[in-house]
Each structure stands twice: as C-alpha cells, then as structure tokens.
C-alpha cells in the first residue's frame, strides 16, 4: 500500500468513527454577527454557542465560569452577576440563591463555598465560592474539577475556569453555572490544588501570537529566573499528556505543592421548584402555508425548554451538508430584551404525517436566563441560498405569543 492509499484509508477510518461530529452551519454567520456587534463571543454573557447545533445529543454538563479573579467583595454575589445582563438585577435569582457555609481551612488557603443555585426542574446548578490566601506570600490556585453525584464534569459551554495568582492576604470570588449530569444528585465535590511559587511571575507578551513564540518567550523568562505568566492568568508550560497541569508546573521546579484538597457538600435541590411556569395555551397555530404546534413549553428561573413542531405541505428544504434545515424558530420577549445568555436547540429530521404533510421538530433549550419571561414570542424564520450566502426571512406577521403560567 502506498502513502496515498494509506492517507485515504486513514481519513476514511477517522471520518467513519467520528461521523457523529457535525458542522455548525451557522458558525460563519454567528462569528461575523458577533464580530460586528459584540466584542467577544467568549464572555459568559455574550456567548451563544448553542445557537443552532444540529446534533441531537444534549449537554451532559456545562459550565460557564464568571470572573475567575475578580476582586473579593463581601456580600457580593457572582451568581447574581451571571444572571444579570443589564443593570436591572434578576430578583428571582437573587431571592432563590441558597447561602452556603461549606469551608475548607488549611495552612495556606481558606475556601468557602458561599452560595448555590440548584434548578432541579431546569437541570442546572450554579455555585459561588471565595478563596482567601491566609499567608503573606502569593499562591497559584488551580481548580481541579467539580463533580455532582459522582459524575465528573466532562462537557462545558464556556471556558475561563482560570487558575490564577492569589496574592498574600487577598481573596477572590468565583462562580460557575452549568447543566447537571443525567444522574446528578445534591452531592457536590470541588477539588483544588494550591501551589507555592518559588520565583516571581513575569507576563509573557506573545510577540506574534503563536504558541511557539509564547513557549520560546516563556523559556527565556524561565532562564531569567521568573515564572512565565499568560495574560489570562495561566502559567505557560509545555504540556505533557501523561500528567496533570499541576504536575507539569511542579515539574518545572518553579513551584512546590502547598496543599491539595476537595470540598464536599450538599445542596438544597428544590428551592427553585416554584419558579416552574408551564405553557397551557393553544397547541396549534395555523397560517397560510404552514402550521406551528407547541408540543411542550416550560420555563424555570434559569432555563426554558420548548419543543416546537413545524408542519408543512411539502418536506422542508434542507441545505444539506454544512447548512442544515432551512428554517428556524426565533424566540424573543415582547419587549425584545436580551433574556438568555446561552441557548440553542436540536432539529429532529422531518417525518411525513398520515395526511401527507411533513412534521419537523425543533427542541429548544436555554440554560442561562437573564429574566424568566412571562410571555415569549415565537417567529418562524426561513432561509434561502443566494449563491453561497444564506438569506433569512423572519415571518413576523405570523408571530405567536406563549403565555407561561
């Protein structure tokens, strides 16, 4: 077998085995929109990564990390921040936050899990905690992971779960929000590693933005006796796939292990149950050339779950590979407010009904609500190809209002 054949067989094997990984047909559009109007698609509040994934699989666990190194402020709630888009506080969230008092106090740090928000019916959990450096010397804090009911966090929707330098006598607040694993219970374990730097830190400027340049600069900084620190708070080190990041840092000889610990605590799971609002109105909305059926719709303080059926005389157009269904449902509040920070859904392939029409289902899910809307407006959007461009049409004249009770 020659090289060319080997390459072809290699590609075929990998493509078959990873055939479930699909394109996001809206990625280009979303990035361009984001670059036009929003400074970053990666910040917790702006990120709408789930805007239109085609894959049917839903999230196992997702975390959005807020303000890994924000200044510590007594009484300040990062959970409230996570659910607040504008200056208007999200009162329903604030009122439902469970004040926690789970603490670890070691020789070097004190860690307090001080608030939680467990949305059992919506399937999300949010945690807020603070870490305090009890000594005079700086420490490097690494969060080793969060586990619910024995299930490790393996999937996430955002990054910024940053490790950071914690200066002597100071403290930081942190918060994380994510969807719960399928078998989550109220038992949560958080793990942390605390390292003591043996040299001062120096920031890496990354002259040309490449990893190689960064590593090169980091090596120079190390030679000068400093610890190279990325602007995002990460200490730069060449990773070894066989050991953890903390171990990689220890292997540089520039750190020593201060302490490693985990904190286990239980969360009240039913505090948000009363926030459940269900849509009990009309199930069918018939328009000139299509029908919308609401199969189920409910919201909680942190989430919205709406299954919509789109019924058409003909099989709906599908743009095929890289494009997907040529229709969508747009969810807005009557006032047009930014009501969710992270939402998306799955399209189920159309099936033909007994009457010859076609039924397509869109399972929509929002997991980080800035407000729990009493009314949501649904509008059908359809798409056409104009050359290589996708042109959308929102059927605003057919707007549907769902009132949740």
């Amino acid at each position, binding site marked *: 077998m020659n090289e060319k054949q*080997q390459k072809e067989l290699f590609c075929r094997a990998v493509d078959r085995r*990873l055939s479930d990984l699909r394109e996001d047909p809206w*990625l280009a559009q979303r990035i361009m929109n984001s670059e036009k109007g929003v400074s970053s698609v990666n910040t917790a509040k702006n990120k709408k990564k789930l805007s239109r994934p085609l894959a049917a699989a839903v999230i196992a666990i997702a975390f959005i990390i807020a303000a890994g190194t924000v200044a510590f402020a007594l009484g300040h709630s990062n959970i409230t921040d996570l659910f607040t888009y504008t200056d208007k506080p999200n009162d329903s969230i604030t009122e439902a936050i469970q004040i926690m008092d789970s603490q670890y106090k070691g020789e070097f740090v004190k860690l307090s899990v001080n608030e939680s928000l467990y949305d059992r019916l919506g399937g999300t959990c949010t945690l807020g905690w603070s870490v305090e450096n009890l000594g005079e010397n700086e420490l490097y804090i690494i969060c080793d992971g969060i586990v619910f009911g024995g299930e490790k966090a393996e999937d996430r929707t955002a990054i*910024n779960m940053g490790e950071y330098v914690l200066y002597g006598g100071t403290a930081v607040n942190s918060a994380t929000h994510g969807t719960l694993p399928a078998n989550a219970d109220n038992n949560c374990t958080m793990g942390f590693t605390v390292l003591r730097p043996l040299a001062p830190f120096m920031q890496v400027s990354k002259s040309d933005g490449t990893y190689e340049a960064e590593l090169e600069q980091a090596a120079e900084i190390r030679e000068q006796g400093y610890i190279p620190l990325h602007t995002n708070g990460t200490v730069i080190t060449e990773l070894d796939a066989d050991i953890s990041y903390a171990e990689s840092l220890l292997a540089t000889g520039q750190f020593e292990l201060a302490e490693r610990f985990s904190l286990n605590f239980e969360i009240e799971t039913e505090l948000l149950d009363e926030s459940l609002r269900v849509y009990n109105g009309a199930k069918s909305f018939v328009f000139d050339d299509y029908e919308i059926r609401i199969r189920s719709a409910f919201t909680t303080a942190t989430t919205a779950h709406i299954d919509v059926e789109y019924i058409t005389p003909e099989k709906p157009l599908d743009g095929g590979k890289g494009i997907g269904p040529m229709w969508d449902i747009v969810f807005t509040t009557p006032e047009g407010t930014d009501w969710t920070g992270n939402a998306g859904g799955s399209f189920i392939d159309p099936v033909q009904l007994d009457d010859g029409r076609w039924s397509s289902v869109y399972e929509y899910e929002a997991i980080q609500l800035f407000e729990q809307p009493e009314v949501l407006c649904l509008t059908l959007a359809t798409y056409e190809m104009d050359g290589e*461009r996708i042109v959308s049409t929102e059927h605003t004249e057919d707007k549907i209002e769902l009132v949740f009770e």
Partner: protein
Amino acid sequence: MSNSKGPDNAQERRLVFERIVGQYQLPLLRMCYLHLSDKSLAEDAVQESFIKIYRSLDSFQGQCSEKTWIMKIAMNTCYDMNRSGWSRFVERKVTPDMLPEASTELEKHDETLTLAVMNLPRKLREVILLYYYQDMNTLEISDSLGISQSSVSGRLKRAREKLRGIIEGSESHE
C-alpha cells in the same frame, strides 16, 4: 484565496470567510476532537480558531498556503484549550466508551485507529494528523508547527512505529 493575499473589501471578506468555514469546519472539528478528546472543547476550539481567522483575514498575505495558515491557528488554539479549564481534569487515556456515537456503519478497525491516534503523545499525534488526515507534506507541517522538516520527519517516523500495523491494517478491512 489560496496562496494569495487577504480580501480587499467587506463583501469579499465575508465571502472568503464563509468559504473557509464551509471548507474547513468539519475536518477541523474532527482534528480538534482527536487532539482534545472532548466534543465540546473541540467545538470551542473550532469556533475560537475561526474567530482568529476572521480577525486576521486582512493580514494574511499568502506567506504560506491557506491550509497551512489555518492549521497553524487551529493547532495553537488546541494548545491554548489544553492549557485551560476542564481539559486538565479529563482522563488522559482515551477509551472506546469516551468516543461519540458513530452515525455510520463502522469497521472495527476505524475505532482501533482512532483510539491509537488519540492516545499518541501530543507531538506525535499532531504530526500524524496533519500528514495523514490533513494531507499536508512535511514542509507544510513544519510551517504549521514552527519546527524543522527534519523534526517533522523524525516525529512522523516515531509515530508510524507506534502505529505500526494499525494504519496499514486498514487494508485488510477494505
């Protein structure tokens, strides 16, 4: 845009970007997955890569091929992802149950090969993926990874030794 300078105006920029995303998204997603062993991380890496590509479209001057440039950005993004967040807490050894479901019929060899590649050391894995999966030559790989061609050849040789019999083994399943 291959081997040429960046687009001149907004309309052309948009069209070029849409073409790049259409052309490279799926191979990048699978390659990032093979690197990161995590579907969501891979999706994040792909998104992050295309954001960087979009932002630097104007400055791409065709110093290398478009593909080399894109792969370089994607590889760097994977490194960044590996350095941050949950990736550190995910088990490093990839086992069959950690792979996503396959939506097409599989040969047993497909999984063997995929797992073997994912469990290679990073430096060997990246070379193997660029060579076999992205069909790049050693010069292009050296440009993408910022290492010499001889290093690429050496890593390729070591990787092949580790995968001895696995890549070639595809033949018997065809």
